[in-house]
């Protein structure tokens, strides 16, 4: 475990710290590391860095470690931390900004976190195509990409039998409006808006 060169860490990554602060809209420097977020986080036990450690790393500008972490993907956005934080910091939003930055910069998280990203991609992929989530396609896409070919397979048949799965998608009529949203978002974000 290397010693952190604090002057450099904060100075060289000031842009990163600022970017996360602005994108999440949260005053990350105000976190006084009480740990209440970690104490209440339902998935903290599975994380590589606990939520308060994530905040600490943001304060120190440790960009690489953050974007590579599993924690930011394991976050289930359950809002427990946000609801109870005594400094009024919406930690969920900070996690969100880190996730998005990792996604944009192409940083792949390791292990089980990678599958989460794969699932988000598959799911959003069906929204883009059909305007509504198409679970079967999302699941198949996920299984393929994550190489968990038989993930949830046991549930598949019973769900079909109970009418809880549809083999064809429900589509939005004005598909162009959906396509517009995706393309406009890509354009605006590509132009750094």
């Amino acid at each position, binding site marked *: 475990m290397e010693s952190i060169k604090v002057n450099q860490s904060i100075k060289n990554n000031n842009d990163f710290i600022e970017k996360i602060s602005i994108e999440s809209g949260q005053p990350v420097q105000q976190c006084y590391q009480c740990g209440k977020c970690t104490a209440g986080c339902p998935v903290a036990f599975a994380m590589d860095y606990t939520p308060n450690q994530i905040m600490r790393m943001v304060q120190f500008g440790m960009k690489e470690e953050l974007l590579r972490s599993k924690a930011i993907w394991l976050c289930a956005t359950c809002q427990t931390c946000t609801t109870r934080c005594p400094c009024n910091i919406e930690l969920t939003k900070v996690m969100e900004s880190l996730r998005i930055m990792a996604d944009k910069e192409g940083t792949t998280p390791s292990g089980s976190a990678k599958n989460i990203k794969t699932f988000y991609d598959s*799911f*959003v992929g069906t929204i883009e195509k059909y305007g509504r*989530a198409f679970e079967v396609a999302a699941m198949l896409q996920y299984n393929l990409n994550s190489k968990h070919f038989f993930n949830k397979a046991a549930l598949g048949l019973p769900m079909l039998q109970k009418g809880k799965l549809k083999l064809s998608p429900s589509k939005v009529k004005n598909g162009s409006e959906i396509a517009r949203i995706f393309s406009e978002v890509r354009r605006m974000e590509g132009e750094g808006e």
Partner: protein
Amino acid sequence: MRYAYYPGCSSDTTGKEYEATVRIVCKNLGIELVDIPDWSCCGATAAHGKSHLLNTALPARNLALAEEMGLDVVTPCAACYQQLATANKEMKENQQIAEKVNQATGKNYQGTIKVKSIVEVIGSLEPDIIKAQMVKPLKGLKIAAYYGCLMVRPPSVTGFDDAENPMFLDNLMRLAGAETMDWPHKTECCGGALQVSNEHIVVKLLDKIYKEALKSGANCMVAACPLCHFNLDGCQSTCNRLLGTTYEIPIFYFTQLLGLAMGLNQQELQFNSHFTDTRKVLKLVG
């Protein structure tokens, strides 16, 4: 009472019995649901991992459609509610984001409507209106009401019920004649968002919830979100398989139980489309 109704993508799949019973119960209680024409996915628990702008624009499209109808939005799914309500708050409070989002959706949402959860709408009715419909009290049911993590938190976005010990569902179930338990995990996350990719984590969360529900003396649970329901109901067997537990707790949608108390028959209520067996517990109801 008229509302712009946002069914959500699971309304015709994993949440189909919820969708059906929401409509019947609302009709009986005089709540008119007008479907938002050509509504689209709110982004659910996935879009927040791709882009903040996308995550706001997807629900905002539906808000704009509802605004054109001149009605407040009501939705039965807690995740959709969180998405729509959060987007609504941001569109109202952050002009910069609002402009970008309207540019992306091509619509001009002005921020004049509200977003409500179906639980809030039904739960805010005068108790007498609901009592008048209760013909078959659900005596014998001991319910641990599960609200899930997104319906009442954070208070700045949701705000209609207490974030630590909510009571809306409990009160409705009591009006239906059931007993509700005071238990501590009403809002503990079940891990629904991670269900597909990380079963082994989710079952640990489920285990905690089932354990406390049983400890409180409950013989069943009630949910108000298709994601939570699918997780608690559909993955109960997975939990038993992976952790060696023997849970057999039926999970009902609260509208199914309201419907049962209203005298609807089992077919209308679609209990057989659950994964966990509901018959034993339903026999307890007089």
